[in-house]
């Protein structure tokens, strides 16, 4: 197991290296705008633009630029400076991690709990009214675009513009260190909106798996032993049917930690997604590169965690 994890971690490094190279080439080959021109202000004279181009190293070929970037990154963990804001990229992005993490972790708790509960009940009551209703609802939830759901939620429930004034509206995010209560209430709507489609997806996934599992021989054995139905379903059924849910959860959380762009935008939460979106608008390559690397990092780490978790959940899985 130890060897396996080390080998995987080495692969993570190679993968991140590849991702950084691809990002660099993509944004070098398809520039959104000339960063030197952007930096030079409203009425750039050509001399100033040239000077900025030179001082940012933009007049060098791409591989020289890439080499310089990677050198600073590897040796000093330095992600460079933003072209647009002229601040260190590392701090700019790391400041945005807390809001994104608040959003994603809270939503993940919500969608796992509700998805597993609904999926289990639906599987046990298969074909009954409650199953049909919840699976119908789940399909609708999967099909709704998250930003639209967010707008509808704000229209109905936001305390400033909503029909019923219940929850704080967009732009009310407060850091947990400032005021934990406000932090919590400001995130209730975003959590529900972000969690909706995931909860629905997990409920469907678990239901399908659980129905298949419940027809296995060992479930009959468990019942024949005289175990209570509750224990048969939860300990023997759900325990084995839940592995794909764990995989999906790990990967989804990993992807979202790199920035939940749509939800953050609708609720105006200053997270990584907003930073990334903003940097693309500004052709701010150092920040784009930083957010892509951060996002890729979360994704590959999530992959690794999921694979390791598998070995604990399923005793048959052994890595060499």
């Amino acid at each position: 197991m130890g060897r396996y994890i080390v080998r995987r971690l080495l692969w993570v490094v190679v993968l991140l290296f590849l991702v950084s190279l691809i990002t660099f080439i993509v944004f070098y080959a398809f520039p959104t705008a000339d960063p030197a021109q952007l930096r030079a202000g409203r009425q750039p004279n050509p001399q100033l633009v040239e000077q900025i181009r030179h001082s940012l190293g933009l007049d060098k070929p791409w591989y020289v630029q890439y080499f310089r970037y990677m050198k600073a990154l590897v040796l000093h963990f330095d992600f460079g400076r933003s072209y647009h804001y002229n601040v260190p990229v590392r701090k700019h992005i790391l400041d945005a991690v807390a809001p994104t993490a608040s959003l994603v972790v809270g939503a993940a708790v919500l969608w796992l709990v509700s998805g597993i509960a609904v999926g289990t009940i639906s599987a046990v009551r298969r074909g009954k009214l409650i199953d049909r209703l919840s699976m119908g609802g789940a399909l609708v939830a999967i099909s709704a675009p998250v930003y639209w759901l967010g707008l509808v939620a704000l229209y109905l429930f936001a305390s400033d513009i909503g029909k019923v004034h219940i929850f704080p509206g967009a732009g009310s995010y407060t850091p947990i260190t400032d005021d934990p209560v406000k932090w919590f209430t400001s995130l209730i709507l975003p959590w529900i909106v972000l969690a909706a489609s995931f909860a629905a997806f997990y409920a469907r996934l678990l239901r399908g798996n659980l129905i298949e599992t419940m027809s296995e021989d060992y479930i009959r054995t468990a019942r024949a032993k005289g175990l209570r139905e509750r224990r048969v379903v939860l300990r023997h059924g759900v325990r084995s049917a839940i592995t794909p849910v764990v995989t999906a959860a790990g990967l989804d959380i990993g992807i979202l930690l790199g920035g939940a762009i749509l939800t953050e935008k609708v609720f105006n939460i200053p997270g990584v997604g907003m930073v990334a979106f903003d940097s693309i608008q500004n052709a701010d390559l150092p920040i784009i590169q930083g957010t892509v690397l951060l996002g890729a990092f979360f994704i590959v780490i999530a992959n690794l965690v999921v694979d390791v978790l598998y070995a604990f959940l399923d005793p048959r899985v052994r890595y060499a």
Partner: protein
Amino acid sequence: MALAAAAFIVFLVLTAVFAPLVVKLVGARPPNDPQSKYLDSFGAPTGPSSHNLFGVDPLGRDVFSRVIYGARVSLEVAIIATALSVALGVLVGLVAGYYRGWVDTVLSRLIDALLAFPILLLALGIGASCSLGNGCLGGLVQPGLSVVIFVIAFVNWTYIARIIRGQVLSLREKEFVEAARALGASNRRIIFREILPNLVAPIIVYSTLIIPTNVLFEAALSFLGVGVQPPNPSWGAMIADATDIFDTAWWYMVFPGAALLLTVLAFNLLGDGLQDALNPRAGKS
């Protein structure tokens, strides 16, 4: 349910194809016809009425006909992007799975790297840069619809390639492949005449499952301002437009969103139905 969904999709496709006719039959104005007489005295858009079934947008354009024309964009992008990504994914999957060895290693690692990307970010970046001036890849990808199609196809083919590769790895060991080889069939013939026909069922299922995702993807890109350029109507762009005024002009947000929801729902239902029909193990629900 799947049949009702299929009927709805046929209806949707017909609506999209005959959009001008539909709009005329209902008696609505064309989608790009701003009329200030439908704005109130403060210049704000007015809601649903007998003149404008779904109300008007801030420029005084008819939301109903824009929603109808929006179906064109949505379906066009979803279907072409799905076809492209499936074609590329199947080709790469076939080659990697059939030849194995270093070809497989290179392709699989490339797929791993692409799957590690935050795809919405990548799509936004490529979309934003290709939407400027003469487009990108030497003018091959022009700003507008083709950018969205290119971006969606580019980020989606990897999933298909992975699945197909896995299937080909097991298919290539079957007796019928050996038999074909013994008869002197070329690799190309084995791949396309022997193996590919066995993959038709999974390809159909995955294609129908990707279409709704791609409809949502196009809308998300348009919502974020990358994608279909104004004044072309797109559901995502309309919702983005409505973000600033949805507290007063609810109709501008609700109708495009509802159209999007119904479309995606219909494709999801159809996909579920096809999966149950083509995969006996998953059925019985």
